[in-house]
């Protein structure tokens, strides 16, 4: 199935229907493995058992950034090709990304209390993640506030691309300013500095969360397509009522169904 086929919403729906069960199953299996390995992982000599928070914190933090990246690519699709499926992808990703960001913030704070003695500190990494969260919320508010989806999509796309500047800031904030937060130890130049007993469960969990995102995203996109279908059908119904009351004088201009259908 080529990319063009994928871009067709109807094909897309058919594909999702087939793929979703498999994706969901894979997610569940990997999550189970990851959790099992995380439970078996040894305590850290410095952090004790609290290191277990890492296995939720880090994947969520990564995904918080990854999802914005996905949205940025979709936004390019919206602005450059004006493709409705790109709008759908961007819109469906926002709440999921916001949820992951929220979890990163929450688990980070919960980890910070034992490690740094405080839930919250205004340092660059934490703050830039909080800004990311605010921007997710802003985007969701924007989508909600505007009822014309294609108009909202274009505005949201501009904002998403502008917000993408935040991603490198989050990523490199620990290097640019020496802060409380851990510098990168998994993904950095010159190989990982993390012990295998932590690294493997962490990677498994990260893959599991990524799969979780893909599953949820596809399902949310499907919902979004259906929502647009409902919207255009509603509009057809409304204009149909209009025709009957206008005694068909507008038959030449019969309003067609538009949108993602």
């Amino acid at each position, binding site marked *: 199935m080529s990319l063009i086929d994928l871009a067709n919403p109807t094909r897309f729906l058919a594909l999702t229907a087939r793929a979703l069960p498999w994706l969901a199953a894979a997610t569940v299996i990997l999550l189970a493995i990851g959790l099992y390995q995380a439970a078996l992982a040894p305590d850290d000599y410095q952090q004790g058992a609290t290191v277990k928070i890492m296995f939720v914190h880090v994947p969520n933090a990564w995904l918080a950034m990854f999802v914005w990246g996905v949205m940025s690519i979709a936004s390019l699709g919206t602005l450059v090709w004006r493709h409705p499926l790109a709008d759908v992808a961007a819109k469906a990703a926002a709440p999921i990304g916001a949820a992951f960001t929220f979890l990163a913030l929450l688990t980070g704070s919960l980890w910070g209390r034992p490690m740094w003695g405080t839930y919250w500190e205004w340092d660059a990494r934490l703050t830039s993640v909080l800004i990311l969260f605010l921007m997710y919320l802003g985007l969701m508010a924007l989508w909600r506030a505007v009822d014309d989806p294609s108009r909202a999509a274009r505005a949201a796309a501009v904002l998403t691309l502008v917000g993408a500047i935040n991603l490198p800031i989050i990523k490199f904030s620990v290097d640019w300013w020496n802060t409380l937060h851990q510098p990168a130890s998994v993904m950095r130049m010159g190989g990982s500095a993390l012990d295998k007993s932590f690294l493997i469960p962490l990677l498994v969990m990260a893959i599991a969360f990524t799969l979780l995102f893909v599953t949820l995203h596809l399902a949310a996109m499907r919902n979004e397509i259906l929502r647009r279908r409902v919207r255009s059908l509603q509009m057809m119904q409304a204009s149909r009522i209009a025709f009957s009351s206008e005694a068909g004088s507008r038959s030449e*201009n019969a309003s067609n169904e*538009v949108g993602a259908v």
Partner: protein
Amino acid sequence: MSGLKQGELQLHGRGLRCVRGGREVFARLDFAAASGEAVAVVGRNGSGKTSLLRLIAGLLVPAGGTIALEGGESELTLAEQCHYLGHRDALKPALSVQENLAFWADFLGGERLDAVESLATVGLDHAAYLPAGFLSAGQRRRLSLARLLTVRRPVWLLDEPTNALDVAGQEMFGGLMREHLTRGGLIIAATHAPLGIEARELRIGGVA
């Protein structure tokens, strides 16, 4: 004053489709206009006259079809060769009549006529130093017309241009349009009232 005569202009649209707010306004619309020609777009309220003008001006993106101007200056886009006179008159109440006009003349650029002269032509010379916020509806419309005169552009897109003009104003405006046509310009005007010049009719959306 010579800039326009360099060749015959041909403006045409083919198979235009317009969608606004998710609803189709018109589809499969063709039109054509050439130098020296005026087209009066007519149709019921809500049939899409304003939308058509905005499509031509590049202020709306067509959902289908093409619009092209042949014979114009090749390095300029269609929109850059159009004057658009809409319901909203692009005047700043805080600036004087003269300042408003001078701004658009400077900003729109291109071949220009003397601003004072065009104010006199539309009968607003006595009000040149009044803030535009003090103008009556018809005086505002006249000031918008002065904009068409100070900056020369070959295609005029006029949305109900005679609105708010008094009888003398309508005559004056008829004269301006005729002059523009003889100079090789073309006019597309949406209107419900008679336009005051001879014009080919383009009907949108069935019989009114």
